[in-house]
């Protein structure tokens, strides 16, 4: 039995941790995260130079990582840094989908690494429907064998700067059926696409996308017509593993910030960490965070096991959702008024941690899913 990361992964994690501590200032991050773009192109390029994207992508597509353990290691580090740049959207969701496509689509993954494109998966359609197979966007087959798609995608992060959309759509089946789902990879300047962008509470921009009779050629489908559910499903499962790991990194950072505060903030003449009422709340957080870590380790171990993956992923996302919210709320409480300020780091970590529960299904959704599996 051995739970230690391999020496290479430990070096990667330590390198990223140090980089974020020294080079990725949280105040700069906050300005960029709440700007019109929603992230910093300069930071994105600097971090790409570190090889972060390569570490998320399989060697056959010019990366040097891409396993569940690689992804978990990198995203824990990204969480510690509260990185808002689109590693999840581009490096995981889009890259995983494109890696199942034709040669032209696979070459887009290589172009991601060369900073020549920014593809974004456009999948979710309603605000409260988290099912991976929920797709109403319509794909119609035209007389000449080409296609048109029409429909709405909601809350697509980092979409406004995208070069390509990977749009899920269906030509047959009910809205939640796993049969009949296709993915179209199209440039974002194609006629018939409308983008409405919004600011977010945790940083980055989100967009609602409307597709009206957008033309698609048959070469633009990723995978076979109507057979692409497994591609989307696997990409989203990978995304869940990634943000659960991101949440772990955030929780560890919150733990550090809170402990530091408990040891320095004095009231009644002593550091507030001397009070048992405070100690027990903090000890409980530590216990919960260890359990959260175990849930992510479990999901990582079983990630390549087709029969166990979804169940362990749902158990992890449930655990992260429940524990993440607790850690966010408790850490704000333990900081008192300081936890309420924009200027101090904690609140920004807490916001991201809570909002992670709203991505890919919240704790209730994944508890129900766990029960159904």
């Amino acid at each position, binding site marked *: *039995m*051995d*739970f*230690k*990361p*391999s020496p290479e992964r430990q070096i990667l994690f330590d390198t990223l941790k140090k980089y974020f501590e020294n080079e990725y200032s949280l105040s700069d991050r906050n300005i960029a995260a709440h700007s019109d773009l929603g992230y910093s192109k300069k930071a994105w390029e600097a971090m790409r130079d570190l090889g972060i994207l390569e570490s998320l992508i399989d060697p056959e597509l010019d990366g040097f990582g891409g396993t569940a*353990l690689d992804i978990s290691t990198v995203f824990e580090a990204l969480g510690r840094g509260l990185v808002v740049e689109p590693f999840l959207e581009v490096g995981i969701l889009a890259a995983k989908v494109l890696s199942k496509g034709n040669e032209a689509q696979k070459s887009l993954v290589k172009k991601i690494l060369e900073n020549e494109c920014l593809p974004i998966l456009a999948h979710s359609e309603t605000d409260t429907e988290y099912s991976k197979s929920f797709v109403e966007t319509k794909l119609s087959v035209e007389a000449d064998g080409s296609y048109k798609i029409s429909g709405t995608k909601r809350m697509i992060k980092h979409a406004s700067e995208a070069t390509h959309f990977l749009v899920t759509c269906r030509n047959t089946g009910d809205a939640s059926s796993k049969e009949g789902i296709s993915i179209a990879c199209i440039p974002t300047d194609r006629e018939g696409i409308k983008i409405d962008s919004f600011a977010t509470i945790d940083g980055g921009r989100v967009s609602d996308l409307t597709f009206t009779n957008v033309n698609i050629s048959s070469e633009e489908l990723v995978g076979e017509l109507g057979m692409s559910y497994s591609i989307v499903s696997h990409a989203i499962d990978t995304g869940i593993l990634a943000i659960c790991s991101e949440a772990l990194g955030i929780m560890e950072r919150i733990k550090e910030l809170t*402990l530091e505060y*408990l*040891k320095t903030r004095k009231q009644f003449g002593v*550091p507030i*960490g*001397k009070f*048992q009422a*405070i*100690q*027990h709340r*903090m*000890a*409980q957080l*530590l*216990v919960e965070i*260890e*359990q*959260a*870590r*175990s*849930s992510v*380790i*479990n999901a*990582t*171990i079983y990630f390549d096991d087709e029969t166990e993956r979804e169940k362990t992923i749902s*158990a992890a996302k*449930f*655990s992260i959702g429940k524990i993440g919210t607790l850690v966010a709320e408790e850490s704000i409480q333990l900081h008192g008024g300081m936890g309420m300020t924009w200027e101090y780091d904690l609140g920004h970590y807490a916001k991201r941690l809570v909002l992670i529960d709203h991505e890919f299904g919240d704790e209730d959704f994944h*508890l*129900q899913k*766990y*029960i159904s599996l």
Partner: protein
Amino acid sequence: MDLNFTKKQENFQIEVRSFLNDNLEPQVVEKVKNGIPITKEDSERWHQKLNEKGWLAGTWPKKYGGKEWDVVEKFIFEEECGSAGAPRIVPFGVGMLAPVLMKFGSQEQRDYWLPRMLTGEDWWCQGYSEPGSGSDLASLKTSAVRDGDYYIVNGQKTWTTFAQHANMIFCLVRTSNEGKPQEGISFILIDMNSPGIEVRPIITLDGSHEVNEIFFSDVKVPVKNLVGEENKGWTYAKYLLTHERTGNANVAVSKRKIQKLKKLADDAKKNEQPLSNDPMFASRLAQIEIDLQNLEITNLRTLASVENGEAPGAESSIIKILGSEIEQDIDNLTRKSLGKRAFVNEPDALSTGYNGAEVFPKAAAYASGKYFNHRKKSIYAGSNEIQKNIISKLMLNL
């Protein structure tokens, strides 16, 4: 990262499983699985069988009759015992006193007492808590005053598990009132048959008799029964407590109990449907299952760190909190799943020779009793609040 057992560990697991299969008595397993206290004779027969195999004290050094199991082998043995419904080895001698004697006792004490633990000649109990000294153990008052070759012991111990079976007790006693309370405590071994000892049962809220109070009036204890040095007992006691707190995850036991609960819920009806289909019930059960899965990994992570030479520190406090709370959650949901049948309290219905009306489902006979009895789990072995104090001090440095 690698969660697999080695080939050697896997073979050991198979050996344990087959030994349990061949040697456990079905009627004792039935009691264990229903949470009914087993008799002294049940325990003694099981200890005897384990001792013949060399597994009663598997972690002991070979020279004392052990197998020198490492933490993983100990874990495998305990988990297999938990799954199979084997009686728990009564820990006070082999698991608690023995490590203290091996580290701090005299050679004469080791040579005399250790073999007797294995043969079952002695049944030990633990004299730690007192009426005024629970979580604040160091404030204990039971005194031992030197008089020639004897100590004269006066005072009272309480919550003493199985004192009714024991012929020996290891005790923390006060030998000095100088300095800090911790600095005047000694660790001595007392014959329960000495004149001046009186054991009174404490019946717990579920009606069972596990714990006792013990009164000492001018009890004469030979000086050779002092372990280590006088007034150094607190060090030995703390060493013992770290042993008491490992192995509290009880993952296998909890897994077995969840399987049983699922069966109960399949058979029970709510809204004319099996209870297991009820969304509220399913949600409660799934949350416990996920907590337990997470604990299983948390526990393995702790074992792996011990295996790699990082000593168990406050991590065992994390395990103790989680293990006890999860087991209590299962007992709680089991009680709920029985509906009105949870009023029944007929623990004898699970013993051989019961003549009363059949209890159905059988698990109902002691489900509420067990639920109340297991409230002890977050109280004993250092209450969960004490565990949080330890975490705060040792892990959070607050």
